[in-house]
């Protein structure tokens, strides 16, 4: 829902939409009617076992109707309007606020962060925009290094100058301009420690690439930034995650987007992302010691089983699905660090280069 128009024009549009929304509510009230607020529901997958679903990212698959008739609705409306008021102020003052900032405006009413998050998502759906359009920013957790140079606002990110040094991923991705890169691929790693390993091993010196980490589940700036790079630079993107259900879920978040942000998935997902590792089959291939293989917990198994039902796996990446099934079958998981057991540089000297060179990614 990210438009191509300039930021200020977008702000005006959004403010107008907010005013229209407010006016509609006032109008209904003045007519003695309960305002009825329709919120589309989106999802980026279904669990239709027949795999012949027609899941679409762009169409809602249902609507929620908020009225004054149910207490839970009124509560949600109360929160939604409070957040909307804050957003209107942010937009009018051209300021940015974090979700946390918004939460702290009424901590007792909001009771917890997730309530605010839902309201922000609802507003995005109502206003048909992305979160950053609301001037709601996340604090960025992502890191980037490698053969890339760009500007964010007036600030220069010159990673090429020192390609093994971590730079924070810019929060305002829409401000990123003048991307210059000589990289041959983008490597996404799940966690900071692996990122540090790559930095320490001078991975980017040896391999002309860009390395990105979202430090766990990637936040929105990281995903938007990655998408921007893939679009602008047309580079292949490989993803290296732990061989456990969370690693896999993080992988799918990069490629297919997250369920909460499904309404915006088409701007956040990166269908180009390829899974580089660690595959469940790697434990045998690289003879990992038994101690490094941990049994899947009950929670792990449940999560894996429910992930297996996601339609996009069957439809778009059946190979991922069979690897995930293999994980469940073997009942063990391992972390990327387990690959460094024999040699610290195994990951950077052998594992990643051989996978990329040999096309061992799915």
């Amino acid at each position, binding site marked *: 829902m990210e438009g191509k128009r300039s930021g200020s024009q977008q702000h005006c549009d959004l403010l107008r939409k907010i005013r229209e929304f407010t006016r509609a509510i006032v*109008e209904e009230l003045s007519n003695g009617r309960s305002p009825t607020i329709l919120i589309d529901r989106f999802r980026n997958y279904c669990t239709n076992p027949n795999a012949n679903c027609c899941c679409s990212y762009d169409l809602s698959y249902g609507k929620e109707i908020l009225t004054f*008739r149910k207490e839970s609705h*009124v509560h949600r409306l109360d929160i939604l309007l409070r957040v909307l008021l804050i957003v209107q102020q942010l937009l009018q003052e051209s300021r940015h606020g974090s979700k946390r900032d918004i939460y702290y405006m009424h901590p007792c009413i909001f009771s917890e962060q997730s309530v605010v998050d839902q309201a922000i998502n609802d507003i995005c759906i109502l206003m048909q925009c992305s979160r950053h359009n609301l001037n709601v920013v996340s604090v960025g957790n992502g890191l980037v290094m490698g053969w890339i140079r760009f500007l964010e606002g007036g600030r220069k990110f010159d990673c090429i100058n020192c390609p093994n040094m971590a730079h924070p991923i810019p929060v305002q991705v829409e401000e990123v301009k003048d991307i210059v890169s000589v990289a041959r691929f983008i490597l996404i790693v799940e966690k900071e420690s692996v990122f540090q390993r790559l930095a320490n091993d001078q991975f980017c010196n040896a391999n002309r690439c860009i390395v990105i980490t979202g430090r766990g589940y990637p936040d929105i700036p990281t995903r938007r930034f990655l998408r921007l790079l893939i679009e602008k630079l047309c580079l292949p993107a490989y993803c290296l995650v732990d061989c456990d259900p969370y690693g896999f879920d993080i992988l799918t978040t990069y490629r297919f987007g997250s369920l909460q942000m499904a309404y915006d998935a088409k701007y956040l997902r990166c269908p180009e992302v390829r899974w580089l590792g660690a595959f469940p089959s790697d434990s045998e291939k690289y003879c990992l010691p038994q101690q490094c293989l941990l049994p899947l917990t009950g929670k792990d198994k449940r999560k894996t089983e429910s992930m297996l039902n996601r339609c996009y796996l069957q439809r778009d990446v059946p190979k991922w699905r069979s690897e995930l099934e293999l994980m469940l079958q073997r009942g063990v998981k391992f972390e990327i660090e387990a690959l460094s057991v024999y040699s610290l540089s195994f990951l950077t000297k052998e594992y990643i280069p051989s996978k990329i060179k040999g096309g061992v990614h799915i």
Partner: protein
Amino acid sequence: MEIASANVICLQLVSSATQRCRLSGEPCRLSVVVKCSLPSDPLLSRISISDTGVGSCLEEFQGLKFSRQSIGDEKWDGMLSVRTTGKCDNEVYHYQLNLKESASARRLTRLPSNPKNGVKFSGTEVILSMFESADALVAEINCFFQKMLMLKIPNVAYELVVERGDAPGSQCEHVFLANESNPLSFSASNLECLKSSIEDYVLKHGYKKEHLKVGSGTAYCTEGHQNTGWMMDTVIAISEISEPISSCFRTSGAKSEVIYFKDFSPCSVSQSSMKALTSIDWRSFGLTLKSIANQGGYAFLEWEGLPPNTRIDIILHSYHKQAVMPSAKQKTQLDRNLIKRAVKLALDDLKEKHAGVLLSAHALKIRSYAPDLAKTIAGLILSSNDSGFQGECFSLIGLQCQGVGGEIVEDCIKKKIISVIEMNDRKSHERSEDVAPFLFEDECLQELDFQEDEYEEGVGFVFLAR
């Protein structure tokens, strides 16, 4: 009708007299004269119940059954002396009834009639004697009449005269007249009469009329052919009092007495009616029934969480759709549903007429959001930097464009929100069920909790655990 005490038979006789008056359709007088301390026997009381209504058909007395177990022989001999005449009759008939006699042939003794000499009048007088002081009886008849007055039967005036001894100074007279304070037209319906009497009551006890909220409802129950069904009139009054006042409505604190009339006479509440009252969904009217008690035939509803200065009065009146001659043959088991329906109609009526009254607990909760919602919406309007938009909104809520204070806007919106919520609450009783918002089965949602979202702050404590 089984008679449990001599007093009960007196009230029953008064009730029959009322019916006869009501049926006559013309202004009637109903007199009860109690003569105590007769010279012949100081303990003997003579009670005369006379009315100017239509003449008695005697059937009404046939139905009375005297239960020996209840009344000692010494208190009443079971004898009724009845004189009655219809408008078209030429003489006044005189009967002697012995209720202690179970063989019906021997119950009635026809005595010589008196000629009317061409004068057209109608009326009945029933006389009985009791070997007992009549003080208790007088008190009961007094209360009975007071309740009768609530029915405001337009054409009946009541009179209670107590004569003590022969000394003229010791004679004491009570007169009750219907319609004295708030005359209703003769054509007023029974329900209107009930409502009017509740208003009288409130005015009489010094409340302002504006503090009184009255709702009423009538439920029908047709049985067999159309005209013989039952009606159930219900009037519910909610009044706010500043101090408790003792009254005939024996209500104290958060208790309501239910006043129950059956065929134009006060009546005790049956077990089945109690059940009907219990099964009403009071909660959907914001009321919480704490307990229900049957004390001597009167139902007491105790409320929970009612404001201390609020009282609720409930009058139920069930009667034949078609006015019928008084008869002891009455359907004692009234349809529970009739009560439920009538009460609900009255409550709905109250709610409809009086904004904010009897809101359901649900609506009350929703309404509690109104100030916040109003404040936020007002904030959205007032904080906007688009004055055109502000003007539009002001005019929508009916405010002058310029120079309006934030509080006024907020207050205005709040009122509108509250009115919508209250309206919704009323409407929701008409519709069968709240329209469920579009539901969709969503198997994905359960996975949501796995997703971590980025939390940036508050990590201080997380560090502690490392």
